[in-house]
């Protein structure tokens, strides 16, 4: 990648162009500089010269000199993930930390990256740079992906205005599809076009006679100027053609060249090539198929079947060196002279000759290049060359070989473009490719097409005959993948039994160290356990899923699995453990300098709900506001809806009923625009009902009962989070008490079977209120007692306080310290509880006593190092100590271990 970030050094033979450099320096006060001109007008050369003169006379001495960053684009950069990774790498030449959070997002996210969120983080980093600098995007015409154009426009629009910020310099053969005319009017754009770049007559004279050392007469210079019209590539080629001639033949050459109507370069390339010795001609033609040249790669191309004699006589390293000396359109790409490239135009000319002269050798050369790149593990290059050979079996083998890495680097677009480019018949004989293709279909919501791919893969598995151990293992792996994909298809379609079946099958088949796929299957399995109401299994499954994701190095996925795990702990009314789990999820979504990634929005919203339950409303509001903002940035509909529900709950507790109504409406709009996770529908109704009850809209409640689509005799759905609890609440509210009691009795059984204590608390609470309304205080207190017993360990407050006066009455009749504490919370918002050490904190303390470092503790418990630090901080606080040794001593005193 470093060769892409290398600023080409200006050649000693350069014709200086101070007037253009001056214009460029002045352009640093604009947001964008566009250099748009056809090939051969010296765009790159001018920018290389600019690199050594940037702001040389405009920087106040006190300020650090600004810098030029550089990115040479190629067609592979049309994959947005690759583009932005390179973009950030280029910026990091300016500041090594610049964009590191954005980079982490790009590299860690198992989904197609959330571009706007990533860009926002990047923009903030750029805005933090104290001085002006510029980034060159060279060869931008190679970028055709609209998503990249859009993202770049977004970035440019939101960059801090110059002179302090970043100026983007876009060099392209075509006008980039950016709003140039608007920026022109707003004076935010400097343009240099072909007419600006063409050599003037004076420059042509300087170039021909001073720079290249020719001694041409004035009329000869004038003739060449007229013929080339200032086109630099043409002039260079003309100079090269003249240089090696004996002086007496020069006038003839100039006469015939300027008189010819042939395409200048065609004419001149012929001239230049014919003056080279045969082995150089062969070298130039053979290596013209390469985007970049290195001596070993060129050697591989030139190797003749059956012997390496030729290499020994003319090693490529020497040829490359000589070509550079002879100024034969070769550009070094690093200081060590490992990599070079031809000037693009020259490469095109050579390639035409190669195709015309030796068409049959072209695929052989590409095959050799591909093989060399394969040995060097340069995936994209190996495959790009392979595609030129039409050896589809080999291409398919390479794609299979690299697919896994591509998926892990989130380069989905590239991978799927490869598979799409292969003939269907080839894909169908390759079960792996079928499986990868089925994922694409899954993401596109095309189940039928995806299933067809999986069936093809299975047919292949069934047909495959006896095999060795390695092949057997591979087949088992494929079967594991097929089951994983199927589990996700089934989850999307809420076919819970099938999810269970397929996900369990996948986990049986997949090897223990395939962390990525195991966690993929685990997410589906956890969802299925949730759907059948097995919170214990669900919690364990999500926990395994999170540790698999961490072991495999996927913090993004681990963070969301931890959130789901925490939600299962909430269901079991283990709110303290849930808090720890959400905090761990948050730590995994936190950048090096404490800034949150957008996926931190989810754990923040969950922590907000917990704080709300514990009646710390100010803290709760802070969490959920951040949660909503980040989830919105992330653009994930399910998470946005969940965060909005959390906000509505806090607003209800804060008695901001207007705000809560707006929030619920927003969430509802999201849920109507696209399908969201099933439990969200239940939560939205819960919020709605509580809002109506708090604002006296009994009519709305009556209408809801009629239209909600739930009835007393329905089977309950765990997947929809026992939605019928809402119906029971509504029935109680409108006085249909006996119906409510019947429903609540059945719901309680369902909740207890699932170990859903959180829901059991709600149900028992409603039972207590119903019996109270019926005047049966004995039953009411019995139900309340059960609710309190379940709620006390988790320290529930708000669930009771929210039921207002009727609940207060009941609590007064239930003498217990917990009831008194709850009653004290009526009117007070902040319940300061002195907490004992949590289970996790005890584990950390034990490991600390065993002499482990923070890092070793993190590895042992499979948690983030920052989480360990947080635990230590809490432990110190709770034990009132200030060091590790003090903590251990104090713990021994207290008999903690």
């Amino acid at each position, binding site marked *: 990648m470093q060769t892409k970030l290398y600023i080409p050094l200006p050649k000693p033979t350069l014709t200086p162009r101070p007037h253009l450099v001056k214009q460029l320096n002045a352009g640093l006060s604009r947001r964008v500089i566009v250099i748009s001109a*056809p*090939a051969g*007008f010296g765009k790159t050369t001018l920018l290389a010269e600019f690199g050594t003169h940037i702001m040389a006379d405009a920087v106040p001495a006190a300020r650090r000199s600004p810098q030029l960053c550089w990115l040479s684009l190629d067609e592979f950069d049309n994959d947005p993930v690759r583009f932005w990774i390179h973009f950030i790498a280029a910026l990091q030449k300016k500041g090594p930390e610049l964009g590191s959070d954005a980079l982490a997002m790009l590299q860690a996210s198992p989904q197609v990256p959330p571009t706007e969120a990533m860009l926002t983080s990047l923009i903030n980093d750029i805005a933090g740079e104290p001085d002006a600098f510029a980034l060159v995007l060279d060869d931008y015409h190679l970028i055709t992906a609209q998503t990249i154009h859009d993202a770049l426009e977004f970035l440019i629009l939101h960059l801090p205005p110059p002179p302090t910020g970043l100026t983007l310099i876009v060099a392209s053969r075509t006008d980039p599809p950016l709003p140039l005319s608007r920026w022109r009017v707003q004076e935010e754009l400097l343009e240099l076009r072909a007419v600006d770049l063409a050599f003037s007559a004076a420059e042509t004279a300087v170039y021909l006679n001073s720079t290249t050392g020719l001694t041409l007469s004035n009329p000869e210079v004038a003739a060449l100027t007229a013929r080339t019209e200032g086109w630099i590539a043409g002039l260079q080629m003309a100079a090269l053609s003249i240089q090696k001639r004996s002086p007496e033949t020069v006038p003839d050459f100039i006469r015939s060249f300027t008189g010819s*109507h042939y*395409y200048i*370069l065609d004419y001149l390339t012929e001239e230049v090539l014919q003056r080279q010795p045969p082995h150089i001609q062969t070298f130039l033609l053979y290596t013209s198929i390469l985007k970049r040249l290195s001596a070993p790669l060129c050697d591989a191309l030139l190797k003749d079947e059956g012997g390496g004699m030729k290499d020994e006589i003319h090693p490529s390293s020497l040829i490359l060196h000589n070509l550079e000396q002879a100024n034969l359109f070769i550009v070094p790409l690093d200081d060590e002279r490992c990599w070079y490239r031809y000037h693009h*135009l020259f490469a095109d000319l050579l390639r*035409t000759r190669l*195709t*015309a002269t030796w068409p049959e050798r072209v695929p052989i050369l590409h095959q050799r290049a591909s093989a060399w790149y394969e040995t060097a593990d340069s995936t994209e290059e190996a495959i790009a060359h392979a595609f030129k050979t039409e050896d589809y079996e080999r291409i398919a083998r390479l794609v299979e070989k690299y697919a896994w890495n591509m998926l892990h680097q989130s380069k989905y677009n590239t991978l799927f473009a490869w598979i799409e480019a292969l003939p269907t018949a080839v894909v169908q004989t390759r079960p792996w490719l079928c499986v990868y293709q089925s994922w694409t279909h899954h993401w596109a919501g095309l189940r039928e097409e995806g299933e067809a791919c999986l069936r093809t893969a299975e047919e292949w598995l069934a047909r495959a005959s006896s095999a060795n151990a390695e092949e057997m293992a591979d087949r088992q792996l494929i079967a594991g993948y097929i089951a994983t994909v199927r589990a996700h298809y089934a989850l999307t379609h809420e076919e819970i039994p099938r999810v269970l079946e397929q996900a369990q099958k996948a986990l049986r088949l997949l090897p223990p160290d395939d962390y990525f796929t195991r966690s993929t299957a685990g997410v589906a399995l956890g969802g299925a356990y949730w759907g059948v109401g097995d919170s214990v299994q669900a919690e364990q499954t999500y926990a395994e899923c999170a540790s698999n994701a961490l072991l495999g190095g996927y913090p993004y996925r681990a963070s969301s699995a931890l959130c789901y795990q925490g939600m299962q702990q909430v269901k079991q009314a283990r709110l303290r453990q849930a808090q720890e789990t959400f905090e761990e999820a948050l730590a995994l979504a936190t950048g090096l300098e404490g800034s949150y990634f957008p996926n931190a929005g989810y754990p923040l919203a969950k922590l907000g709900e917990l704080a709300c339950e514990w009646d710390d409303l100010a803290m709760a509001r802070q969490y959920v506001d951040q949660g909503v903002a980040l989830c919105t940035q992330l653009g994930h509909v399910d998470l946005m809806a969940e965060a909005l529900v959390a906000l509505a709950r806090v607003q209800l507790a804060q008695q901001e009923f207007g705000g809560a109504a707006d929030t619920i409406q927003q969430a509802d709009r999201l849920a109507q625009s696209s399908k969201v996770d099933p439990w969200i529908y239940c939560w939205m109704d819960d919020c709605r009902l509580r809002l109506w009850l708090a604002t006296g809209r009994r009519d709305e409640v009556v209408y809801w009962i009629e239209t909600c689509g739930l009835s007393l005799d329905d089977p309950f759905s765990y997947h929809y989070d026992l939605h019928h609890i809402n119906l029971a609440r509504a029935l109680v509210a409108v006085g249909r008490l006996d119906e409510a009691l019947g429903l609540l009795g059945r719901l309680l059984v369902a909740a207890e079977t699932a170990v859903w204590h959180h829901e059991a608390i709600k149900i028992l609470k409603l039972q207590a209120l119903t019996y109270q309304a019926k005047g049966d205080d004995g039953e009411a207190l019995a139900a309340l007692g059960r609710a309190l017993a379940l709620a006390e360990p988790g320290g529930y407050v708000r669930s009771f306080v929210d039921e207002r006066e009727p609940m207060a009455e009941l609590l007064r009749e239930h003498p217990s310290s917990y009831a008194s504490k709850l009653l004290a919370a009526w009117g007070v918002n902040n319940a300061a509880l002195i907490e004992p050490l949590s289970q996790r904190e005890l584990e950390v303390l034990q490991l600390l006593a065993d002499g482990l470092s923070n890092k070793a503790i993190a590895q042992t418990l499979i948690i983030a190092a920052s989480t360990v630090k947080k635990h230590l901080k809490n432990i110190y606080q709770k034990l009132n100590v200030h060091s590790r040794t003090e903590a251990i001593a104090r713990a021994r005193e207290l008999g903690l271990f």
Partner: protein
Amino acid sequence: MLIETGGHHDLTLTDPAYYQIRVQGKLAPRWMAWFEGLTVTAVADETILSGTVADQSALHSLLAKIRDLGLPLISVNRI
């Protein structure tokens, strides 16, 4: 491929069509392969590239090749 001489049916983005592209400067016939098999004919100081292109995106990649060589484009005609 039937070359129509007039009264074209409406062209869609996916239709193959016969094009004639004129550029400034003479190109040798060996450029045929470069231009995806189009016939390369040099006339005076111009070159005419003619032949059937598979669809509109093939046409645009031909135009990009002309751009990449720095050949001034004179005209593009569907025949």
